[in-house]
């Protein structure tokens, strides 16, 4: 269970313009266990920065994040232990095999070799990566790299999973496989948050959708609730309406 409350984050302005850039203005939502929560928003809406605050890479200027009821600012290491994170940057070590990449993260999580081997077996079956598990990752396809990155993020069997645009650059078949995998995680009672700018994907998968635009939450609820809120039958229309009206406000 992950709760975000009134998160705000700004960055120093570049160049002559010294006014601070507001990346996340006021974002708050609740992601429950056994549900997939989708963070939906256009490019530059502040999704990645929000997620970075969730996994303690950045500190919010105001607001707080609770993971399993504990404030992450109090003990960031414990929070990271309870989270499995696939960040926006998903580089793998190219001179290590996929298995060694996974093992490295397992060791950093303080796992025993036996436990790592067991989890690696489980994850590689679920993600269908047995045939390239023992190859050095140099020359991996985008899908193979993403699978490796997901497996190493989940090696420590975390209760909460955060994935930043996991389907970026993946083909249809791989995306379908990944979707099944996320449903499986939900079935295991985990709390899954994933961000995307692709509406169909969120609609196909999520129990709850949090729509973010210009660093603010503009809608929060089930697919039906969001359609209702926007007064549109079609989710895509609803999405455009929600973002568009917000842009109208700023103009």
């Amino acid at each position, binding site marked *: 269970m992950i709760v975000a409350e009134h998160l705000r984050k700004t960055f120093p302005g570049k160049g002559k313009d010294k006014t601070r850039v507001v990346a996340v203005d006021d974002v708050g939502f609740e992601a429950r266990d056994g549900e997939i929560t989708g963070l939906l928003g256009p490019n530059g809406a502040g999704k990645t920065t929000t997620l*970075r605050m969730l*996994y*303690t*890479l*950045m*500190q919010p200027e105001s607001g707080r994040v609770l993971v399993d009821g504990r404030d992450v600012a109090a003990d960031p*290491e*414990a929070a*990271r*232990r309870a*989270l499995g*994170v*696939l*960040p*926006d*940057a*998903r*580089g*793998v*070590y*190219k*001179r*290590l095999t996929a298995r*060694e990449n996974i093992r*490295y*993260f397992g*060791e*950093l*999580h*303080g796992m025993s070799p036996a436990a790592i081997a067991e989890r690696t077996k489980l994850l590689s079956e679920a993600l269908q990566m047995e045939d390239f598990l023992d190859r*050095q990752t140099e020359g991996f396809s985008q899908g193979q790299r993403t699978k490796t*990155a997901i497996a*190493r*993020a989940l090696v420590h069997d975390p209760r909460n999973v955060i994935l930043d645009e996991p389907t970026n650059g993946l083909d249809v078949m791989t995306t379908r496989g990944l979707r099944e995998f996320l449903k499986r995680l939900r079935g295991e009672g985990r709390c899954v948050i994933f961000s995307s700018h692709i509406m169909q994907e969120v609609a196909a998968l999520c129990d709850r959708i949090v729509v973010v635009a210009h660093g603010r939450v503009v809608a929060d609820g089930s697919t039906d609730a969001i359609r209702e809120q926007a007064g549109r039958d079609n989710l895509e229309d609803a999405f455009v309406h929600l973002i568009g009206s917000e842009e109208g406000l700023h103009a």
Partner: protein
Amino acid sequence: MKALLIVWKKELLELVRDRRTLMLTLLFAPLLGPLLFLGLATIGESKAKEQMEKPMAVAIAGAERAPNLVAWLASQGIERKDVADPDAAIRSQAEDAYLRIGDDFGKDWREGKPALVEVVHDSTRHDADIPVRRLETLLGQYNQQVGALRLLARGVNPGVATPMAVSRKDLSTPEARSAGLAAMMLPYLLILGAFIGSLQLVLDTTAGERERQSLEPLLATPARRGAIVSGKIAAACSVGIVSLVLTLLAFRVGAAFAPGAAKQLAVGFGEMALMMLVLLPMVFLGGSLLTWIAAAAKSVKEAQSYTTVLILLPMIPTVILMVSPVKNQLWMFAVPFLAQNQMLLQVIRSEPVTAMQWGVYLVAAFGIAAAFWFAAIRRYHQERLAVSA
């Protein structure tokens, strides 16, 4: 502590898998210095020997005015040769030096007045130094001989014209004497090797990790940033130490096969252990300083542009000491690069290093390394570090 070991092990595993960088770090770099150094020493020595002993042909302007001198010089291995325009030949560097016999040489000689002989040369040309010195020495000898004969002919003991017998007594150790050239270059090569021996690995594990976008996932693990940075620095130091040992061994083996004075560099294993101890803090300083610098760079290329400047750093004390040699003072042992330079010289010259000097040196060197290590950890705590693009 456990995370430190995990990071250390993984960085070294990656290095071992990367054959090209491994060769560059552990084979090429340690061998290049000794080869260059011993090669230069050998060439320099054989050239000096050649110029000192080989018969030399020198143009003598106005030779007909001093046939006895020319004949005597010929007996000492200085042949006479004809050059049309000797001044031009020296300027165009075709000739090293020539002798000009004064116009009134014969007249002055007969009258017992000092007769003019000029050694004409270009003092900015280093390779002319030895021929000029040879000519001057021979002319001085001839001068003395003839002067003594003249006094004898007048019934005077030549000894009265030499009220004092000035001579030098050299107290330097044979090791110190032979160390001339070595004293200049060797410390620089060794310090540089120790300082940037781990450069490739550091670039790869810090700036390279950011460039390949694998830093953000790493920082999302529960491992403490201090442990991660320390693991990376520990890997850099391990590589630096191996590289340093190989460099010292290469010098030892190379010097044993080199001819002449370079052979003197074949120091004993006791001295090698001392050199190792002197250079060890340099490895730590290099590892932590490079990590600190490279951590701020977004790409390996950017980091390289910062670190190339560092290659010049160890050169500064060597150059300053070349221009104005100074006596050892205690404060010098607290200044990085200068301290290593002085201590290596002391070891090469077989001079004892006092306990006080060791104390100041080790405390200062490890203190500075620790400061950069701490700065590198602080830098890894910055938020913008984790954001790759």
